């Protein structure tokens, strides 16, 4: 009896040792994504947290040696990275973080990014094309892996133009391009403040959605916000001033909603969905939001059409380019032995199918050329735009790659735009002051 008991105990002990040993070799990986766990994906309506759970459960089923825990944060905090900054400061950042280049580059700039060159094969790199530029360090090492990107467009309330018989003034298929002159003509014609219709709107109270303003520069060749080579700001150049003068003429002619310096993008929404604005610069996801809001609030719906940002007369049409790509960043590990499994997870996450789904959730474009366009079959409008965007590649309207202290620069830019949106603005001086200040900020 006793011997049997001892045998049993030995077996149990052996078993638990083995189990413990295998349990110990499970590597814990933490994954954070910017967003909100309660929000739903834009393409399928599935909750983000359910989506990620599926993704990671699937991965862990075939990779028994990792234990992935995920969290989706930051959306509620007004889009700031405070939760990340403090996690970094406390020495407990996640292993992997997924967010827009604008925000993850901050951590790269602080020297916290691990080398991800091993994630992508040559074949992979071909799929991403020149988008990888935004994620490559000067020494050629990859500090991030791209996933999805948005693009900027001018969204037009076609119904308003139709009602007044002015639709002929709008840009036409298939490319929907127009010059600044054509843009002004349409704006002047549709503008009717006495009856509550403004041609368009600007907003500058906060840095939020400043790309909607910056995207105008894409139509003016030679305008450079930031020069990577000399590491200085160039938005006070003659070409930039010319573009800004065009934009200011919209204010001078009362073609924009008054008070833009005191509005954030949210404040313009009510005007737009109540059809008090004829057209507005924004991002591709704005169209979807419009429809949803109109349905929710029981407002009369309207037909909208997407157009390019206008280009300077005589210049090539403004390209549809992906902007501010989202990507993965991996924080440098204390134990380098952790890296291989993390790299493998990234490889999995950036694979065409998952990347396509993540992009679709944000109503964005997956950046791999071989990833399916999430709107291919469902939304032919979006498909033509997303195809064009991927063809062109990336245009960084946030102009932030490699810019240290970019958040401060962005805040300074918001203040410059606030000054710009006044009737009596001295544009050259405002831009000179901004350039001086921004150059100082990045040297700190």
């Amino acid at each position, binding site marked *: 009896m006793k011997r049997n008991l001892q045998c049993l105990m030995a077996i149990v002990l052996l078993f638990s040792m083995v189990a413990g040993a295998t349990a110990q070799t499970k590597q814990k990986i933490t994954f954070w994504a910017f967003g909100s766990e309660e929000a739903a994906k834009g393409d399928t309506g599935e909750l983000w947290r359910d989506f990620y759970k599926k993704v990671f459960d699937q991965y862990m089923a075939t990779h028994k040696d990792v234990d992935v825990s995920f969290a989706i944060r930051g959306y509620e905090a007004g889009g700031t990275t405070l939760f990340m900054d403090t996690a970094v400061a406390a020495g407990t950042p996640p292993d992997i973080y997924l967010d827009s280049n604008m925000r993850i580059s901050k951590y790269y700039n602080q020297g916290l990014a691990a080398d991800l060159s091993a994630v992508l094969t040559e074949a992979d790199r071909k799929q991403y094309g020149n988008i990888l530029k935004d994620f490559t360090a000067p020494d050629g090492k990859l500090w991030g892996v791209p996933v999805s990107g948005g693009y900027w467009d001018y969204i037009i309330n076609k119904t308003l133009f139709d009602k007044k018989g002015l639709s002929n003034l709008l840009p036409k298929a298939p490319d929907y391009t127009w010059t600044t002159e054509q843009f002004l003509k349409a704006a002047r014609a549709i503008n009717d403040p006495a009856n509550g219709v403004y041609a368009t709107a600007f907003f500058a109270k906060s840095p939020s959605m400043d790309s909607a303003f910056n995207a105008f520069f894409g139509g003016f060749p030679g305008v450079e916000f930031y020069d990577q080579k000399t590491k200085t700001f160039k938005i006070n150049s003659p070409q930039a001033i010319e573009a800004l003068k065009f934009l200011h003429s919209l204010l001078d002619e009362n073609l924009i909603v008054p008070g833009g310096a*005191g509005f954030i993008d949210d404040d313009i929404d009510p005007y737009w969905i109540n059809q008090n604005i004829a057209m507005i610069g924004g991002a591709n996801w704005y169209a979807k939001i419009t429809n949803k809001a109109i349905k929710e609030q029981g407002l009369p719906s309207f037909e909208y059409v997407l157009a390019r940002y206008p280009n300077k007369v005589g210049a090539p049409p403004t390209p549809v380019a992906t902007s501010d790509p989202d990507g993965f960043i991996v924080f440098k590990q204390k134990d380098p032995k952790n890296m291989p499994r993390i790299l493998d997870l990234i490889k999995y996450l950036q694979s065409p199918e998952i990347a396509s789904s993540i992009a679709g959730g944000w109503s964005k474009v997956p950046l791999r050329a071989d990833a399916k366009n999430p709107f291919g079959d469902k939304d032919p409008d979006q498909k033509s735009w997303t195809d064009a965007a991927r063809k062109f590649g990336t245009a960084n309207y946030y102009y932030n790659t490699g810019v240290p*202290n970019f958040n401060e620069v962005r805040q300074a830019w918001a203040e410059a735009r606030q000054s710009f949106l006044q009737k009596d603005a001295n544009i050259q001086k405002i831009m000179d002051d901004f350039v001086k200040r921004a150059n100082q900020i990045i040297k700190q």
Partner: protein
Amino acid sequence: MNKTSRHSSRASRAAYFFIAPGYIAFLALILGPLLYSIYLSFFNASFNLEAKTFRGLGQYLGLLDDSIFLKALGNTFKYVLVVVPSAIVVSLVIALMIERFGPRLQGLFRGAFYLPTVAGGVILSIVWIWIFNPTYGLLNYVLGAFGIQPVLWLSSPSTSFLSVCVVMLTYTIGQPIILFLAGLAGIQQDILDAATVDGVNAWQRILLIKIPCIRPVTLFVLATLTIQIFQSWETVFMLTQGGPSNSSTSLVFLIYQTAFISARVGKAAAMGVVLTVIIMIVTLFQIRMWREER
């Protein structure tokens, strides 16, 4: 050892036990952080504290060079100089008016004026953003009835400061009204009666008797309001975010921006120290004034 000294030493030891929780909390949550802030103010630091670099006095000298800091400093003084006297005058006038009613109605009015204070600056700002809207806001509509062109309240550097002042005024008068009413109620009735019989009219009674009699209350209101307005943040945050172009920013708002948005905690700490020093100087000055008149 006699009974009293044994008692007093026992009382002393007990006293230390009694003040211990409070004092420990004070050291840990007020004095400690304050000293750490002062320490941090000499460093260039972000949230990654291990990477901080020493700057010494250069940090403070750098502030003198920083045009936005100077603007915030100037604005903060401007806020105090505009809002504090206005609030005192308005609340005093209202208190004098409320005083003429019976106690029940006094309580009603007093509560009514305190309601905005209870609701708080954040919630009031939410509705004022709507009221201030240039196109569909209530204020421009009312002004329009008088033929005044729409004003870009929160969107123009020339009016943003004033807009913040107006909103601040709506929720800072509640407390002074209560205090003034209490002070006025404390004035002895026979002085007032004697004066009335002597032929002193109502205005003179107010100016020559009531106001001087409540001087301590006035000075107290002055002191607390000054400190409160020096620390203004909520209204600036909700209404204008300091803009446009920093025309309405305050020192505390700049500290918040510098620390939590730009993540420059060292610089923000230095600004905090400057603010503390200013408040202490102003408060000491006011205490001096107070002591003198007694």
